[in-house]
């Protein structure tokens, strides 16, 4: 898919909880096909501290309304400005960027997300179901207050939940959930996106069970389209760009995973 710079218009700012919002935005023309795992680079206006664009995963696309959905967690000055965007505001995007998750036509899939890493798992869950695969979600959060709204996910499969303080679902990390501790061997493939430590723990569990695992990395990048070479990840065949050769990698290809 040809990459482009395009001005979107925000159509809705849906507050999920104290930290998360979902931004709905549409381009003037028709949205191209978006594959699960692809991301956008958002230009954040104002302020010397938000000089570079911010890479954000595509949460979902709605073909009927021609909208793209972006899940945004307020973590710093850049995301704070994005969280404040209102319907009618403009959003300068470079997209679609990166590669995408494998979408097989059958099999039992486990989609493990932590924190804001749950974002691409919604579009992935939908695409897997459309193709005919079975979808199981395992979503982790620090506590109940910042757990993602599960409504949209529910339509594609059952959801296991963990919170670090036990205020919702199983207490602990995603790796403490029976889905990963006991039922992993029933799965054909694991997908994961979230904090580095969580993804490494999921990858270790998948490796132990001999199950294919794809991770979506969040390395810092300056451009998003392969020019700056800042976001490299060490693979068994040398450094690769997270932005163009990822963000999705099979853990078998990564060095040290």
């Amino acid at each position: 898919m040809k990459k482009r710079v395009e001005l979107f218009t925000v159509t809705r700012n849906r507050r999920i909880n104290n930290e998360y919002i979902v931004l709905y935005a549409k381009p003037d023309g028709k949205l191209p096909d978006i594959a699960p795992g692809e991301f956008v680079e958002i230009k954040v206006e104002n302020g010397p501290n938000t000089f570079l664009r911010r890479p954000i995963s595509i949460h979902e696309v709605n073909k009927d309304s021609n909208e793209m959905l972006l899940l945004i967690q307020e973590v710093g000055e850049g995301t704070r400005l994005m969280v404040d965007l209102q319907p009618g505001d403009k959003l300068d995007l470079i997209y679609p960027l990166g590669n995408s998750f494998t979408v097989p036509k059958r099999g039992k899939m486990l989609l493990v997300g932590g924190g804001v890493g749950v974002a691409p798992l919604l579009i992935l869950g939908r695409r897997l179901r459309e193709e005919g695969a079975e979808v199981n979600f395992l979503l982790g959060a620090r506590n109940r207050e910042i757990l993602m709204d599960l409504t949209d996910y529910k339509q594609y499969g059952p959801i296991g939940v963990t919170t670090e303080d036990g205020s919702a679902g199983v207490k602990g990390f995603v790796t403490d959930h029976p889905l990963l501790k006991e039922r992993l061997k029933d799965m054909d493939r694991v997908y994961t996106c979230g904090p580095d430590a969580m993804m490494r723990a999921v990858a270790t569990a998948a490796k132990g069970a001999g199950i294919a695992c794809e991770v979506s990395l969040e390395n810092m990048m300056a451009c998003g389209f392969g020019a700056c070479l800042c976001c490299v990840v060490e693979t068994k065949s040398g450094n690769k760009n997270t932005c163009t050769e990822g963000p999705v990698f099979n853990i078998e290809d990564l060095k040290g995973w």
Partner: protein
Amino acid sequence: MTASGTFGFGEEYEDFIDISALGGIVVKGTTLHHREGNPYPRMAETASGMLNAVGLQNKGVDYFVENIYPRIKHYDTGIFVNVSGSTIEEYVQTAEKLNDLEKIPGIELNISCPNVKEGGMSFGVHCPSAIAVTSAVRDVYKGHLMVKLSPNVTDVTEMARGVEGAGADSISLINTLLGMAINAEKRRPLLSTITGGLSGPCIKPVALRMVWQVYNAVKIPIIGMGGIMNATDAIEFMLAGSTAIQVGTANFIDPTISVKIIEGIKEYMQRHNITDVNSLIGGMLID
């Protein structure tokens, strides 16, 4: 032109712009041998700029000649190769391998990369070394020899005069300024190499000053760069003495910026009734 290390080999920008609309491109820093570059993290955002420590990751000059050059030689623009090395011999051998490429009118000798442990900037901050590497490459390289200077020196004019005397056809400046950033909460550096090269609009005043100083010190053309984000910035560099300009970090934020800058320069010329863009070179008015 677009600046080395910010524009890949041009291909990365093909979706966004017509590469042939540009005056020239300087492709990613190339060395004699393959280099993996520095470990991650290689980038940190700073106020109005960024630090990088890529460390000249590239597949080596032979790979460029055999695999990349055939893919990009159709661009109707001046393709310059940025050449770096750890020893004079490496610079010379790399330049020799680029001699016979019909669509490469020149090379940009990078004696100012702050991100490699050996060589690189050490040639560019020591005048006798800068002269030695420039003249050694001049002896073997037949095309246009542009030498890229480091701002990390006490007197940039001394370096400029040195490389001019050693046979440089033009001078490009400035490369990145050596800088660093720390995460106070974690008490750790933000770059794997601790220090890295600072670029972006925060370095523009330093770059303009150095272009102006070099303009008053040498006769060969200057290619100015350092934080150019728009056409006004580009014109300022020309008024300070640049014959051409390079756009670097701005490409990351707007991959179409280089063509917008060309349009902006034309618009400025119309608004000021200027017919020859060369009349802007060193055209700053001083009372």
